[in-house]
């Protein structure tokens, strides 16, 4: 009886479905942590640019940051499906910076430089995440 219970627990632990769910959850948690850090950095940058630059620059920065978050989400989704449902990383996410530059170039109220800075705000969040990542 005891042996069969142990065998059942051991089978549960080695079940590929459970392991796969755990690994996906780990990757999803990583994305969530990066998203939170990105949101915090974006809020800080927007507040600083409203206070020290002007409102149009802050709006451009916010638009760029939203595009950066969308780009990063698409990239993470593409990497998440690598080796499972696709054998290569898709390039769909590159449409996001193209659309951002086109929108900013067409609207005279928006500025290009703050939008690009806002778009690249995902990089500091990645650096912060991987600097303070707990080593387990």
């Amino acid at each position, binding site marked *: 009886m005891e042996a069969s219970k142990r065998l059942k627990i051991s089978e549960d632990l080695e079940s590929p479905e459970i*392991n796969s769910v755990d690994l996906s959850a780990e*990757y999803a948690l990583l*994305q969530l942590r990066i998203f939170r850090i990105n949101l915090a950095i974006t809020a800080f940058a927007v507040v600083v640019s409203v206070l020290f630059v002007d409102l149009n620059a802050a709006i451009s920065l916010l638009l760029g940051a939203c595009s950066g978050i969308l780009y990063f989400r698409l990239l993470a989704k593409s990497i998440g499906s690598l080796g499972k449902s696709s054998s290569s990383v898709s390039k769909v996410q590159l449409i996001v910076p193209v659309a951002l530059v086109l929108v900013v*170039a067409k609207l005279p109220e928006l500025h290009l430089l703050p939008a690009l800075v806002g778009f690249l705000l995902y990089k500091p969040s990645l650096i912060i995440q991987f600097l303070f990542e707990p080593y387990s």
Partner: protein
Amino acid sequence: MDSITTAASVVAAGLAVGLGAIGPGIGQGSAAQGAVEGIARQPEAEGKIRGTLLLSFAFMESLTIYGLVVALVLLFANPFAG
């Protein structure tokens, strides 16, 4: 914008995207190959491998984006247009 500036801008935009995509393309292919091999060898480390791959892809692809932005600025918001 005179015709020489227009022609030079279009050629420069093409070169910026084309040359800027070569290096990251090779790097991304090699990184993806390594990651998939690593996951196949050690499935229990999949989460960490994918996380590291995400970081490296984000940094590599930003080089492509720089070239793309330079090309788009040259085409749609050219600072040399008189």
